[in-house]
């Protein structure tokens, strides 16, 4: 065993300088090619990512309407956001709405996705068809999702009330009742859980058959197997989905925008009593309705910091889990 390894080494070592010697100057030209190939992506990155990120940070310390020159105001945007409830009356409300939405939508989505994945994983015939059907809502444009669900939730002619009527639940005005807005939005999120379902399916497929068999031999029933084998084995998948799910839910925007826009001249407000005023919708309104770009940038940095803290805490938590 040892001798071939020893024999290989001298044969390999001279090969490398040999290749270099055959192509003098390739290093320099290769560097140039490398730079040229990343140049378009680099230009994009600088113009549309790096500069905007830094500019947003700068603008968050200014008062700016996009047209005249920004006026430096220091930390005032940030302090006003948190403490001036005359200037920003709905700031805390939007945070509350977003947190509530996240707390309801993320677990609901993951439980639905896991249930779907478990069911699909147990069957053979038709599993591709079910996977496809359950995935359809994911690829649907949020403008269409919003439009379709507004019609489904219609208080008088909506299908949701009609179906619930069959089991004796009285008609609700889903999108116009403050307490029902978050559940209604979370249900749409769960309806669109297809990505999590696919990722859970991949997670289920990666559980070795031998572990399941061992549990069967040890006399574990299906319920025990689910809680003692499947759930622990899926923990990394769940963790990933929780992190990405929270980060996505905190940024929910397009859907609420479509759902609560409309009625002709009525402007977007975020639903009855601001019960659907998601944080990003709040930012959007300040930036593009009230032209308060500086304040909007400050709000978006509060979100950025919040997301970074969550990511950081969760990864600390994961490291602890692993060790």
């Amino acid at each position, binding site marked *: 065993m040892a001798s071939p390894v020893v024999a290989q080494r001298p044969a390999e070592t001279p090969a490398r300088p040999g290749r270099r010697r055959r192509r003098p100057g390739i290093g320099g030209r290769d560097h140039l090619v490398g730079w040229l190939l990343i140049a378009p992506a*680099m230009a994009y990155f600088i113009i549309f990512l790096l500069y905007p990120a830094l500019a947003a940070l700068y*603008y968050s310390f200014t008062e700016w309407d996009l047209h005249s020159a920004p006026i430096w105001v220091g930390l005032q945007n940030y302090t006003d956001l948190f403490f001036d409830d005359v200037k920003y009356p709905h700031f805390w409300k939007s945070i509350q709405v977003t947190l509530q939405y996240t707390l309801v939508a993320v677990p609901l989505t993951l439980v639905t996705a896991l249930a779907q994945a478990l069911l699909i994983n147990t069957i053979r015939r038709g599993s591709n068809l079910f996977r496809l059907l359950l995935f359809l809502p994911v690829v649907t444009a949020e403008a269409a999702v919003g439009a379709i669900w507004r019609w489904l939730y219609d208080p008088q002619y909506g299908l949701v009330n009609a179906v619930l009527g069959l089991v004796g639940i009285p008609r609700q005005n889903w999108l116009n009742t403050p307490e029902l807005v978050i559940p209604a939005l979370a249900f749409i999120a769960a309806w669109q859980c297809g990505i999590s379902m696919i990722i859970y399916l991949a997670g289920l497929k990666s559980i070795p058959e031998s572990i399941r068999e061992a549990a069967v031999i040890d006399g574990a029933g299906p319920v025990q197997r689910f809680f003692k084998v499947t759930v622990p084995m899926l923990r990394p998948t769940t963790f990933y989905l929780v992190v990405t799910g929270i980060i996505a839910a905190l*940024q929910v925007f397009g859907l609420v925008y479509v759902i609560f*826009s409309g009625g002709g001249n009525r402007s977007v407000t975020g639903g009855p009593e601001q019960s659907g005023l998601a944080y990003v919708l709040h930012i959007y309104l300040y930036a593009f309705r009230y032209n308060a770009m500086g304040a909007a940038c400050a709000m978006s940095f509060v979100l950025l910091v919040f997301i970074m803290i969550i990511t950081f805490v969760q990864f600390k938590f994961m490291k602890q889990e692993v060790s």
Partner: protein
Amino acid sequence: MNQTTVRRLPIYIALILLALVSVVPFVWMLATSFKNGPDVYTQVPQLLPLDKKTGEWNPTLGNYEYVLSISGLGTAFWNSVWITCVLVPAKLLIDALAAYAFARIPFPGRDKIFVLMLAGMMVPTITLLVPRLHVTQLLGVYDSPWGIILPNVASVLDIFLMRQFFRTLPVELEEAARIDGAGRMQIFWRVILPLSKPVLAVVTITSFIFHWNDLVWPLIVLNDPQHYTLPLALQQLASTESGRAYYIMAGAALAVIPVMIVLLIFQRRIMQGIAFSGLKS
């Protein structure tokens, strides 16, 4: 029926119920879109396009005609088609070139630049919107199709995915091509790209779906209804015609159906792609 079939019956019933929840909204959308206005608003939900009074078969294409011509969804549809057809290939090329350099060409600073780009992915989109809008104004592309294309013409996530894939290709192939006298670009076109069809397919399809559906950026950068993309035109329609569900559902169907077709054709690749990357959202 054998025993396994009987045991699996409840599972199939559960799956059929879940699939119904998933699909019925689309069926309802289509059903509404083919109904005449008065027939839409019935106390008991009616799947088929029947006349409200006489109960006779009474479907119409009028809603589609109306939204395509009068609400401007026809223009918007073609705007979306050509924007996606320019954007997706351009983006694919820019991302693939960069991914190849990051995967295979050693040049000074390469890995630092790559890490910086990945860090940029963490910034939420909403943070970038205001300065990006300002940049498009400075570049003179505000309220034009290029205002959609340019700010989307590369993607760090796609560069990352392609780089990961390119790195799994055997170096020996490239070395053999080099010995035969091929330059970097020839290797890229003749060796790397033909071997990378799976990842190229995933990135192309997910990009198509994402940009076809995108509402937020067009909402901010477009002003003239002549330039609207389909999702934006649909949002406007849903807002101005909010009392006329039959028009809105026809508009929604126009936005949904092309993507459904793409999903049906490429479902296997899309599912595989998600299993290792997650869809961009």
